[in-house]
C-alpha cells in the first residue's frame, strides 16, 4: 500500500497544481487511502497559498547595465587559442634558454688571452675579438684554411663591445690602445668566437674571410693555437683590395 502511495504522490501534486483530471487508478487509490486523500487536500492548500506567497515585484530593466558590462568584457577567446599562444611562448623561451645554457666548449681565448692584447683594450668577454666596426652588416663568410680539428666559429655584431678601430695592420693584428691612437673612436664592433674541438692537436689554425656585400669591404681572420698561446690575426680591406688568402 505504501509503495502505491509513493507512486501516486506525484500525480496528486500535479493534479493539485494544474487541476487536470486524475487518472482513474489514482482516483480509485485516493478513494480507499485516507493518507493520500489528506495529501491531496494539503497539496491543494499549499499550492493555493503559494500563488500568493511570493509575489514577484516588477523586474528592473537591466539592459543598460548588461550592455555596458559586456562592451568592456568582450567574449573570451577559445581556450585553444590561449593554449597555442602559451605553447609558442614556451617554445621561444625554451629555445632562448637552451642557447644560453649550451656548454661553451673550449673558447680559444678564454683562458689563454693573447699576450699581445693590451689589458685596457681587451673586450669584456675574452672569447671575442673585434672584426668589423660596422654593426649589422651583411657578410659572406668563407673559410680558407682549416687544419686538424676544424673549430666552430661564430661571428656576429655586438654593439655593446667597444674597442678601438678595426683598421689593424696585418703585421700588428692586435688592436692598439686608445693611448697609442688617441684619435680613434670607440665604436661598436662585431665579434667572433672560436671554439676548438674536444681534442685539438697541439698546433691548430683556422682562417676565414668575410665580405660585406654592401661596401665590398673584406675582412680576413686567422686564429692559430699553439701549446703556449692563441694568436688571432685579422685584416680589413676596403673594396677593390683582395685580402691574402691566408693569414699573416
Amino acid at each position, binding site marked *: 500500500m505504501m509503495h502505491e502511495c509513493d507512486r501516486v504522490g506525484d500525480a496528486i501534486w500535479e493534479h493539485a497544481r494544474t487541476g487536470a483530471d486524475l487518472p482513474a487508478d489514482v482516483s480509485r487509490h485516493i478513494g480507499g487511502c485516507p493518507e493520500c486523500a489528506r495529501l491531496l*487536500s494539503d497539496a491543494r492548500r499549499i499550492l493555493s*497559498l*503559494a500563488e500568493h506567497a511570493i509575489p514577484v*515585484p516588477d523586474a528592473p530593466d537591466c*539592459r543598460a547595465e*548588461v*550592455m555596458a558590462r*559586456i562592451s568592456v*568584457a568582450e567574449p573570451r577567446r577559445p581556450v585553444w587559442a590561449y593554449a597555442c599562444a602559451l605553447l609558442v611562448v614556451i617554445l621561444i623561451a625554451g629555445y632562448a634558454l637552451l642557447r644560453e645554457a649550451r656548454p661553451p666548449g673550449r673558447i680559444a681565448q678564454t683562458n689563454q688571452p693573447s699576450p699581445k692584447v693590451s689589458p685596457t683594450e681587451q673586450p669584456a668577454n675574452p672569447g671575442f675579438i673585434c672584426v668589423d666596426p660596422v654593426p649589422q652588416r651583411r657578410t659572406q663568410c668563407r673559410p680558407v684554411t682549416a687544419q686538424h680539428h676544424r673549430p666552430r666559429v661564430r661571428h656576429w655584431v655586438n654593439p655593446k663591445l667597444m674597442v678601438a678601430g678595426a683598421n689593424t695592420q696585418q703585421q700588428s693584428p692586435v688592436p692598439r690602445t686608445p693611448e697609442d691612437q688617441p684619435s680613434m673612436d670607440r665604436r661598436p664592433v662585431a665579434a667572433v668566437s672560436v671554439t676548438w674541438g674536444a681534442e685539438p692537436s697541439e698546433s691548430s689554425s683556422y682562417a676565414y674571410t668575410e665580405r660585406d656585400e654592401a661596401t665590398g669591404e673584406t675582412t680576413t681572420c686567422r686564429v692559430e693555437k699553439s701549446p703556449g698561446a692563441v694568436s688571432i690575426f685579422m685584416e680589413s680591406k676596403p673594396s677593390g683590395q683582395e685580402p691574402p688568402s691566408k693569414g699573416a
Partner: protein
Amino acid sequence: MGIPGELLLTQVSENLVGLARAGDTSAFDRLVSMHQREVYALAYRILGNAEDAADIQQETFVRAWRNLRRFRQDAAFSTWLHRIAVNLCLSAKRRKSLVQCDIPPEELASQSVGPNPGADVAALRRIIGSMPAHHRVLIVLRDLEGRSFEEIAGMIGCSVGSARSRLCKARGMLRERMRPYLEEE
C-alpha cells in the same frame, strides 16, 4: 495555420542567439529584453530579495554573453539561461545566508495561526525561505513556475528521475513544516 506564439518566440530567440554568438551585441540586447523578466522572477523566488535578485539577473546575462560560444543549442536558450541563474543563486546562497526569515521549523510551528489567510501566506513564505536552497529551487521551478522535469533536470544538472525524487523530498519537507497551518483548516 499560424505558428504558435511560444514556438515563434523560441525561433526568434534561437536566431538572435546565432547572431549574438557572431558578436552582434544588438541581438544580445534583444535577448536580454526578452528574458530579463523571467530570470528576475526566478532569482527573486529563490532568493526572496529584490536587490539580490537584480544582481543575479544582471550577472546571469553577463555570464551568458561570456559563455555564449559554449552554448551548443541542444537545449532552449531560456533553459540554459535559467541554469546559469539557478547556479548563481545557489552560489550566492552558499556565500552568504540570503534567507529572509531563517526561522527554525519548531519556532514556526509554535506560532499562532489565525483565521487570516494572509497569515498563512506569510507563514508559507517564511517556510519556503527557511528551506534548504536546493529544495527551494525545485519547488520554485516546478510548483511556482510550472517547469517540466526535463527543463528542471537541465537547469540543475541532474537526470529527470533524480529531479523527480528530489522534488518529492522537497514537497514532503514543505508539507511537514506547513502541517500546523494545514491542520487548522
